[in-house]
């Protein structure tokens, strides 16, 4: 049984508008027998934080195209993407790509 996990979640580039316009969220994931991974975090966000139109954030079991995920200031592709095992105090950023001039 692993201990609860404190995370700093950030949303930017417009993605925060799906979370009441709040960019910074300090959340605690409950303890569970296996370590938390990113796939589970996305399901948890969907179940606990997303109020409406979850398809604007999540499609299938990953984030929708056009949202970049950063784990501790690095592209999540460098960290294992959905399989990354979260550590206590990790910083996870979901940033919507901007297209405007």
């Amino acid at each position, binding site marked *: 049984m692993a201990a609860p996990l404190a995370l700093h979640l950030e949303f*930017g*580039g*417009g*993605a925060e*508008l*799906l979370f009441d316009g709040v960019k910074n969220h300090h959340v605690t994931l409950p303890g569970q027998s296996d370590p938390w991974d990113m796939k589970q975090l996305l399901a948890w966000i969907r179940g606990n934080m997303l109020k409406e*139109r979850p398809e*604007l954030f999540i499609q299938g079991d990953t984030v*929708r*195209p*056009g*949202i*970049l995920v*950063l784990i501790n*200031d*690095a*592209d999540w*592709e*460098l960290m294992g993407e959905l399989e990354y095992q979260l550590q206590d105090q990790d910083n996870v950023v979901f*940033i*919507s*790509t*901007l*297209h*405007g*001039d």
Partner: protein
Amino acid sequence: PLKSLTTLSNEDIMRFSRQLLLPELGVPGQVSLSNKSVLVVGCGGLGCPLAQYLAAAGIGRLGLLDYDVVELSNLHRQVLHTELTLGQPKALSAAGAISRLNSAIQCVPYHLQLSRENAIQLIQHVLMYDIVADCSDNVPTRYLVNDACVLTGKPLVSASALRMEGQLTVYNYRGGPCYRCLYPSPPPPDTVTNCSDGGVLGVVPGIMGCLQALEVLKIASGQGSSFEKQLLMFDGQEGRFRSIQLRAKQAGCAVCGETPTVTQLQDYERFCGSAATDKCRRLNLL
């Protein structure tokens, strides 16, 4: 192609004296700038300050591409245009302002809507330039410009701005990723917000366009960029910059990967499900 200069004129030495003093630039760097050409895709909030500072710094040739005409609602951020050029094509309005600042710059305006039909024309334009700056205002154009740069082997200095935020990356440069490596699939059209929908504080694209100009100048003068595997994010409300380490070039990328499926330009409006302009309003959700 530009004719190749090897020295500076006396007037150049006077004009650029303050930057010739820089050890990072010096006479060789300045000569290199004067032999380089840059295609600026979009003469809006990013393209205006970018073109302004590239011309001021002595880039040899600037291509200025835009499909649009100057409107009053542009003037809060598109600072090369003026009340007197309302209604003119932006590419022409920008070229006029540029030549008042530095008449020695070769300035080539392209009043052009990018589409499937003129894709071959675009590739030929891109081929004539050393560096491309993406200052566009819509998703299809960003994929189109990316693919054109990969197919012609040109570095792409890309910035974007919306509301009070900005992003900057250099694509397709020294082993770094291209735009498609990062974003293999386009965003669903109803998640895309542009400046017409979401608004933008004018000086935010000002900041991002200047930062974009700096990276173009560093590449053009031979210093190299700091952003070929990094994303610079700016939050103007918090006054905060953050640098993010990006993935390497992806072996499976559809255009720059080992077995590319995109070997010529495509129909990007169909690919993205949206038009290559920021005019038509969409669901204003993200």
